[in-house]
């Protein structure tokens, strides 16, 4: 009650200062009148009475001041006055203020940007209710050498029916479909889901309803739930779309719902959800097709859920029929086990390590910025030393002076923070627009209240940090020295330089750490660029995808004929040197299956390790620029004849037969009941999992198969690979679309891009780290050099008299210059030594983002230190030339 009154009265007094003042003046004057009247009543003359009343009251102004001085709002007023004073002083030195604010803005802006990325990507929960309960159902299978197996339909049904740990279980996979009958045929991305998908996420369509078990059965009507964006783009957001039937891959499909605008899933772009419509009765045991997700019952831990999954895995073989040709023992020996992860972990992956390296980098940049501004403040405080001493001598308490100095730096900090926030916002917008880094959850990144709080906190902390340096030097409760010596610029004492030299040393050390960091990233990048990806001149390769639904082209041979016809049209386009087809582009596919070799019979009942499969057309290897190490390419005759032939990668050939040439004529197959297929060629290794990963062993099969237990016996969705110098041009794109349309007008061209974008994406993380570290390192170097320049130059100006004396006594210019260069070099050498030690400790944390370079790479350290010392020598030499230009007569006469 009383506190509330204190607050409201105080605020009222603050807001209506004049009225409050008037009130007090009136009251005092009334008091005087009454008092006078009382004295008159006692018999004094009016004049005497007034004098007596004034005597009794004392100093009127003093009384009014005392009355006014009560209340917390007066403290605020003094503080505001101090702030105004600080702001005025900063305005008086716009150069200093601008330099400090910009330096800080850079440091704070970078830190804020990276912080909001870390916060949005790593910390923020996924955008579903109680998202911490969501898990990705992955598996391990040590028997086939993988710890990241997806889920099979058989396991999905088993889990749905038998689990004790989950609220809901669902399966999803991403694919594409062709929508016809609306406008141009359009190839859209589709999320194929089981009916538990939206319930698992606890998401309701914003319009219409979710899938039911009937929608999800092969006997129900085909149904679709549209994404908000696609609904708006194709149907203008018309709610009457519900119940309408659209043709998807030639099948009439009823629209039953529209997703909320905010709905996203695993960073997958998609236009609609379609039900998987699996037939429980005919699903075979080995049917790994999809990704599994589930929502844990509340109170169930990941470990308990894993135990539950482990319990259910052996149930599947009892309920589902074994695939023809597979052996029960073989399935058992894959030793499938649970590998459950939180859905967020599954999405975010290991980007955290990169982000923390970046956070460390910008943290160091911020520290350097602080040191730099601290240095500027020191110089300023030095200039004000006399003023401060006089004020202290006149009775200003040291707390009061300290408060003033701190307010000034806090003001700088806040101004820097505000500018930095703007920079961070701009940087994040740029990042979102160009997306060089391909971060997970990119669309969720933004500056929210937590990032704002972080910015405010680091701005104030930075302000206090560098503000304390001059306070510690000048506002300690001992000030008389300043008065004694301040007026005359005698030769500066060592003490006065120490603080600045320490700051410069710190800056140099931090700059060296960042330089070493960027050096290591440059070496990493070089190493990555040196890796031959398994294709060549990716900038000259254009790619696009088409999918041929069975409702449009029924027979498998017709599919191949259509694909070949398109390929021929593409080859005829001006400037096209080579073209081919493949089911998945390099670095984009991950379809893994076991592979048997005739002369390397696996032990009875065991399944051989899984290999990466690709389906390809004649000419693909040439178009993508993959070298044929041995043997030959396949032919169209073999493709149409479903000939039992295949190509393999060099590493697989060496693993099994030690020599690529020895592999030719060997026989392989994908299952025990398959035909044997002859290896007719060996292609060079492809870094299919990314440049920094080992090249997986690969097998290339023709597009159409006979007696085949592997994936898809005819390939209906193919990526075209077109080698031409015109890659990436709009003209080529138009001609490609015409080529496709001239063969079949209802086929849609999708996902047009050059192979280079695919390649760059695999370097994206390394480039992001490199660019940021290089910027930070460059800035750090620049700030450090400016600092050294400033210190030496200041020292020259302070020691003018000494220089004069030295020159007068016969010192040469060279000797005087050397004196100052030595000073600058000594400071930076000590800084560099500390920097090397710090770098050795800190760069170990970078290990995870480095590639084929040691964190203690001697070359990088040597180059960074040498470069830094050279630059430091230069930065000290420039100002020291001023010393040599000192005229001894002038310098001595000045005093």
């Amino acid at each position, binding site marked *: *009650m*009383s506190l509330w*009154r*204190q607050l409201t*009265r105080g605020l009222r007094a603050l807001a209506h200062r004049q009225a409050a003042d008037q*009130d007090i003046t*009136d*009251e*005092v004057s*009334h*008091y005087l*009148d*009454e*008092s006078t009247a*009382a004295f008159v009543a006692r018999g004094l003359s009016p004049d005497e009475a007034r004098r007596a009343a004034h005597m*009794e*009251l*004392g100093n009127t102004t*003093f*009384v009014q001041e*005392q*009355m006014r001085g*009560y*209340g917390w709002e007066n403290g605020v007023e003094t503080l505001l006055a101090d702030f105004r004073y600080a702001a005025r002083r900063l305005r008086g030195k716009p150069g200093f203020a601008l330099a400090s604010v910009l330096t800080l803005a850079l440091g704070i802006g970078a830190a804020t940007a990276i912080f909001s990325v870390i916060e949005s990507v790593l910390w923020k929960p996924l955008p579903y209710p109680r998202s911490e309960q969501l898990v990705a159902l992955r598996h391990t299978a040590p028997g086939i050498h993988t710890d990241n197996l997806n889920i099979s339909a058989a396991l999905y049904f088993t889990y749905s029916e038998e689990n004790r740990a989950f609220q809901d279980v669902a399966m999803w996979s991403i694919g594409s479909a062709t929508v016809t009958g609306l406008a141009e045929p359009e190839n859209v991305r589709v999320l194929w889901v089981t009916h538990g998908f939206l319930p698992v996420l606890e998401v309701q369509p914003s319009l219409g309803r979710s899938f039911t078990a009937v929608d999800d059965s092969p006997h129900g009507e085909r149904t679709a739930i549209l994404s908000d964006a696609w609904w708006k783009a194709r149907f203008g957001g018309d709610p009457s779309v519900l119940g309408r039937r659209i043709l998807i891959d030639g099948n009439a499909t009823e629209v039953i719902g529209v997703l909320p605008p905010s709905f996203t899933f695993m960073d997958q772009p998609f236009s609609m959800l379609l039900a998987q419509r699996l037939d429980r009765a005919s699903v075979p045991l080995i049917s790994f097709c999809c990704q599994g997700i589930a929502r844990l019952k509340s109170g169930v831990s990941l470990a308990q859920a894993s135990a539950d999954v482990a319990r259910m895995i052996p149930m599947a073989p009892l309920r589902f029929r074994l695939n023809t040709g597979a052996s029960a023992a073989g399935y058992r020996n894959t030793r499938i086990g649970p590998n459950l992860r939180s859905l967020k972990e599954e999405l975010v992956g290991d980007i955290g390590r990169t982000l923390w390296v970046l956070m460390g980098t910008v943290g160091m940049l911020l520290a350097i910025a602080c040191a730099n501004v601290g240095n500027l403040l020191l110089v300023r405080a030095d200039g004000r030393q006399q003023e401060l001493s006089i004020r202290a001598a006149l009775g200003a308490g040291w707390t009061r002076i300290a408060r003033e100095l701190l307010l000034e730096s806090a003001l700088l900090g806040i101004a820097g923070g505000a500018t930095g926030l703007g920079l961070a916002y701009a940087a994040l917008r740029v990042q979102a627009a160009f997306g060089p880094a391909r971060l997970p959850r990119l669309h969720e990144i933004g500056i929210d209240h937590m990032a704002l709080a972080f910015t405010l906190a680091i701005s104030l902390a930075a302000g206090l940090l560098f503000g304390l340096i001059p306070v510690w030097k000048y506002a300690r409760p001992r000030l008389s020295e300043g008065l004694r010596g301040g007026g005359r610029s005698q030769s500066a004492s060592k003490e006065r330089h120490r603080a600045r030299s320490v700051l410069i040393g710190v800056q140099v050390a931090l700059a060296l750490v960042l330089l070493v960091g960027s050096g290591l990233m440059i070496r990493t990048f070089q190493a990555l660029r040196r890796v031959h990806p398994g294709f060549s001149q990716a900038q000259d390769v254009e790619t696009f995808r088409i999918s041929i639904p069975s409702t449009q082209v029924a027979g498998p041979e017709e599919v191949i004929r259509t694909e070949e016809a398109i390929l021929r049209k593409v080859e005829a386009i001006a400037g096209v040197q080579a073209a081919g087809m493949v089911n998945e582009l390099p670095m984009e596919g991950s379809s893994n299956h076991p592979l048997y070799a005739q002369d390397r019979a696996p032990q009875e009942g065991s399944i051989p390790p899984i290999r990466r499969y690709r389906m390809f057309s004649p000419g693909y290897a040439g178009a993508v620029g993959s070298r044929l190490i041995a043997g030959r390419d396949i032919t169209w005759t073999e493709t149409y004849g479903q000939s039992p032939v295949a190509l393999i990668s060099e590493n697989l050939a060496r693993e099994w037969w030690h020599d690529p040439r020895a592999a030719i004529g060997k026989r392989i197959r994908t299952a025990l009941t398959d035909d044997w297929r002859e290896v007719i060629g060996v292609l060079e290794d492809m870094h299919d999992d990314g440049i920094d990963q080992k090249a997986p062993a690969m097998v290339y099969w023709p597009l159409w198969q006979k007696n085949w237990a592997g994936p898809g016996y005819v390939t209906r969705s193919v990526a075209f690979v077109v080698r031409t110098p015109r890659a990436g041009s709009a003209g080529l794109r138009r001609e490609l679309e015409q080529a496709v349309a001239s063969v079949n007008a209802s086929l849609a061209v999708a996902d047009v891009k050059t192979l280079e974008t695919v390649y760059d994406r695999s370097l994206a993380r390394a480039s992001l780290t490199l660019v940021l570290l290089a910027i930070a390192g460059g800035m750090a170097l620049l700030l450090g050099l400016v600092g050294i320049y400033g210190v030496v130059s200041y020292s020259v100006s302070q020691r003018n008299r000494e220089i004069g004396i030295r020159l007068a006594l016969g010192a040469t210019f060279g000797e005087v210059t050397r004196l100052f260069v030595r000073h600058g070099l000594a400071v930076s050498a000590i800084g560099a030594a500390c920097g090397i030690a710090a770098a050795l400790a800190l760069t170990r944390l970078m290990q995870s983002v480095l590639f084929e370079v040691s964190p203690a790479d001697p070359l990088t350290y040597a180059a960074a230190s040498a470069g830094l010392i050279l630059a430091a020598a230069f930065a000290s030499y420039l100002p020291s030339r001023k010393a040599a230009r000192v005229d001894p007569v002038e310098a001595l006469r000045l005093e």
Partner: protein
Amino acid sequence: MDEPGTDLIQGTLDMLILKTLSLGPMHGFGIGRRIEQVSRGVFKVNPGSLLTAFQRLERMGWLDSEWRLTENGRRAKFYSLTRSGRKRLEIETANWNRRASAIARLLRTEG
């Protein structure tokens, strides 16, 4: 201030103001005058302390104030006791009585 018998005992001014106002609203000078009169001139109140005390007591929520006309037609700031001020007065009075009687006892036993 140096005259004997005119000093207010530290901390009693607030109580005396509250007590005076418990009889009814009054302006500053009147309050001071009243304290002097009732105490038969034992307490002479310093006007500066008095005016400052009003600020404090009002902020504490024990007094309300209002500009009104006096009997002789002049504008004056009248103070009145709030409910929490009344409670405060009870507490202070009780405290004072306890202390005063304790001191009286001490003086008796010594004498």
